[in-house]
């Protein structure tokens, strides 16, 4: 080997498996992490509150993306599974006195079990029919949240404490930020690892070509159920984090509307893309906040806008989702790929 082309050469397959390969991508991720963890120093309470909502949404969106984006199984019940996690965690901590850091994974597991049960129809149904079956799951769980008052306290709502551990309470936006951010990063890393190893390939295979997948030895029942369970596990974690952050939960927080918002997140962010879940969560949490701030600023000149806000919000939401479906069906993740390859070749790209 006398002649060598310049470029990024790898000498082992191990090197190819490193997540951030080039010097610059590592530098960027390092700067990002530093920026993230020092955020409480320069962001105000409100900004941190928004960040916390984003972090929780990221965890939930990762779960739905595994199910819908990677495995191709539609679910209209994600909101309900968030609720299962929220109430499970609230009940464990408030009624049974279980420590939060035990209740959190338990909430995930309980939601995962529910997901497993309600995922069983996916073994027979696909597409719209599966959507309807998961819709049934949504309504059944909503009904239970209202009526099993011994656990949920029904429509009155259940009070939940901030999480605490060994006398330390995550009772401010700053403290909660570290908790949520760390868990969101962890969830992202684990999900990324799953999709680049054997179970993730089986998920994608079932989505792309179920017959071939089965002939290659992938048990479709097992992996569909696994996707449902993992997806609802993350929903349960997100639900638990949410419950202990807003400190009062009612069944209204976990309606079909929430399920659809999560679907919108992964569609806008990018189905079947890990980073799509993040972009989608950021987008969907920021959008109403931005709309609210904008309408607040305008209300000085145009007071009527405030009254219209609710209607405008829904309308803009719908328009944006339709615009994405038409103009950017691969989501923000696709834009991100284009931007990255643009900068790689810069200044030769044009």
């Amino acid at each position, binding site marked *: 080997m006398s002649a060598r082309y310049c470029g990024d050469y790898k000498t082992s397959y191990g090197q190819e498996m490193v997540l951030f390969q080039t010097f610059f991508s590592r530098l960027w991720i390092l700067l990002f992490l530093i920026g993230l963890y020092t955020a409480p120093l320069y962001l105000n309470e409100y900004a941190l509150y928004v960040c916390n909502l984003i972090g929780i949404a990221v965890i939930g969106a990762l779960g739905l993306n595994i199910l819908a984006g990677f495995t191709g199984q539609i679910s209209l019940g994600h909101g309900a599974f968030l609720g299962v996690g929220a109430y499970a965690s609230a009940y464990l901590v408030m009624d049974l006195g279980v420590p939060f850091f035990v209740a959190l994974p338990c909430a995930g597991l309980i939601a995962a079990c529910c997901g497993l049960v309600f995922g069983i129809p996916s073994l027979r149904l696909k597409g719209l029919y599966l959507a309807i079956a998961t819709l049934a799951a949504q309504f059944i769980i909503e009904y239970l949240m209202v009526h099993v008052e011994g656990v949920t306290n029904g429509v009155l709502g259940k009070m939940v404490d901030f999480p605490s551990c060994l006398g330390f309470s995550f009772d401010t936006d700053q403290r909660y930020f570290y908790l949520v951010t760390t868990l969101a990063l962890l969830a992202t890393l*684990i999900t990324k690892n799953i999709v680049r190893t054997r179970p993730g390939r089986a998920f*994608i295979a079932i989505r*792309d070509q179920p017959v071939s997948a089965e*002939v290659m030895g992938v048990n479709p029942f097992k992996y569909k159920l696994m996707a449902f369970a993992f997806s609802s596990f993350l929903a349960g974690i997100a639900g638990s984090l949410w419950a202990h952050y807003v400190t009062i939960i009612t069944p209204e927080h976990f309606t079909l509307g929430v399920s659809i918002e999560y679907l919108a997140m992964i569609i806008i962010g990018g189905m079947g893309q890990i980073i799509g879940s993040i972009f989608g969560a950021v987008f969907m949490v920021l959008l109403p906040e931005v709309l609210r701030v904008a309408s607040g600023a305008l209300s000085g000149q145009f007071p009527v806008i405030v009254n219209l806000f609710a209607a405008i919000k829904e309308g803009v939401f719908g328009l944006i989702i339709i615009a994405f479906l038409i103009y950017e069906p691969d989501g923000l993740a696709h834009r991100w790929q284009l931007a990255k390859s643009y900068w790689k070749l810069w200044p030769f790209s044009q």
Partner: protein
Amino acid sequence: MLDATAGDDLRVVLEVEGVTLSFGGVNALLNVSLQVENGSIYSIIGPNGAGKSSLFNVISGLYRPQRGSVLFKGQDLTLLPAHKIAPLGLARSFQQVELFKGMTVIENLLLGRHIHMRAGLFSGGLFWGKAREEELRHRQVVEKIIDFLEIEHIREKTVATLPYGLRKRLELGRALALEPELLLLDEPMAGLNQEETEDMARFILDINQERRTTLLLIEHDMGVVMDISDRVAVLNFGELLAAGTPHAIQEHPAVIEAYLGAEDSVFPEGRSGSRNIL
């Protein structure tokens, strides 16, 4: 010919016995029986709609026959779900290429290693120690297949961006990654140009000779079939018309009649210029 002695279990790797498959009264297969010897190349020919692909679907567990059975290495496959058949050592390709479009070439091949790998949600999610080591090990196996099929230049490409000829080749690779003892290929040369067809024939022969893999082929290219097969079976309207050596098949009156209804041979000269090299 084969007699029913114990030693035959080793010689006959696949035995199809009186398989009948019908779709709403239409017989796609009618009492079809055949025996595939270990290490051989066995081809199935016949006009479109004869039931060749249906037979593959029965063998690989996608269709359940109304009557008859399929024995692979002496084990009855007839009632097994498709995903339980692959681990026994049986892989196949499809007539219409059925790859995983959103995955890269490497990922498609790694999926072919599914049954040889162990990682689940937990170990995969942590990607540490064992799972990492497993991923590396199987990556090496996959790279050997990439070398063998001469597709190094496309290894990182997504399937959706590949031309048809390479997709056909990749589908062969994915089946190979499973390390099957019996490989079913449904029209591996259909739609390929002359050069690609020759490459494919070479791969098939190499797989048979170097890996000692038994091959069951469906193919329309008579030159190739007569050239590389040890045994040929002819299906017509779901029925087995004849089975035997390529030579015997070419001379078989019923086959000649079914194909042309005339005396002229329908079989072109083999690739090597000889019709009866086997």
